């Protein structure tokens, strides 16, 4: 083995290490699925509570249970596909997976807490308005952490947009329009970043 061969081998190893550390984020399809689902569900929620849709508000439970079931099913299907993608275990992808899992858990805890409050007769339906407000703030955090680890600066913009959405939703607390704002904001904070993530992933192949 000559010095040149050794250097060539080291260059080869460096290229492989780089391809691993710069592996694209693979969670785009899951984000896109949730983004579309959340936007549509929030829009339907707004339609029901504002009276735009001729559906009784008691069917909101069915709407959100359907949302959870569809989202869970879609995540399971897409998750299986993602699990076999190259680079899925890179640092950035592991961090992204961890922060979004924690985000989901946080919102689920909030939701269960509200349901328990209502069952104990200590809460009102308006408490559910906290979910999108806290949800956008959580998104901002998740995107911010992922941006830092993955070095994708545009994710920092998504993070800022999500924090902004949280601030914009707060003044609408208790009003039907909150859900319309949240539906529109979700397009910019989830659908667009997910499409961009998918675009980056395809470009890197």
């Amino acid at each position: 083995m000559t010095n040149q061969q050794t250097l060539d081998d080291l260059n080869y190893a460096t290229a492989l290490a780089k391809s691993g550390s710069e592996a694209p984020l693979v969670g785009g399809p899951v984000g896109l699925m949730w983004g579309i689902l959340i936007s549509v569900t929030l829009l339907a929620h707004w339609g029901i509570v504002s009276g735009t849709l001729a559906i009784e508000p008691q069917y909101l439970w069915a709407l959100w249970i359907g949302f959870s079931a569809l989202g869970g099913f879609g995540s399971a299907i897409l998750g299986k596909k993602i699990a076999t993608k190259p680079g899925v275990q890179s640092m950035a992808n592991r961090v992204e997976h961890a922060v979004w899992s924690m985000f989901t858990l946080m919102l689920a805890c909030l939701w269960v807490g509200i349901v328990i409050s209502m069952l104990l007769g200590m809460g009102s339906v308006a408490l559910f308005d906290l979910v999108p407000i806290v949800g956008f703030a959580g998104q901002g955090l998740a995107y911010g952490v992922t941006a830092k680890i993955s070095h994708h600066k545009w994710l920092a913009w998504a993070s800022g947009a999500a924090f902004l959405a949280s601030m914009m939703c707060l003044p609408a607390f208790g009003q039907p329009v909150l859900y319309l704002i949240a539906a529109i904001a979700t397009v910019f904070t989830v659908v667009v970043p997910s499409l961009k993530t998918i675009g980056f992933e395809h470009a890197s192949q």
Partner: protein
Amino acid sequence: MPANKDVQTNVGEGSVMQSNEVQSNVGDIDEVIHGRLRLGIMAYLSAVNPASFPELLAKTGSSNGNLSTHLSKLEAAGYVRQEKGYAGKRPQTLVHLTVPGRRAWITYLEAMKELLGS
């Protein structure tokens, strides 16, 4: 230790290796890692851990048998761990870089940096 010998000889040709310090660094070069494919495997696993067998195949451009052979050598040294399992209904082998493996990889890189004088 053929790999060590080769490097020692050739570095000597290029830069006249005289210092004892540099010579001792040559001794630090881990011959288990020092081979193009094994080097590539360790490099990729240092960034993506674990990686599936097909992923390593695609990234290293190696053949199935060749990759298996070299993974076995790294596994025998305790640098990687192969985990046989299933992804859904399909069999899947995941290759993990172990803690001693990561340590050996860092030591190897330090030794090579010293040796090549960069």
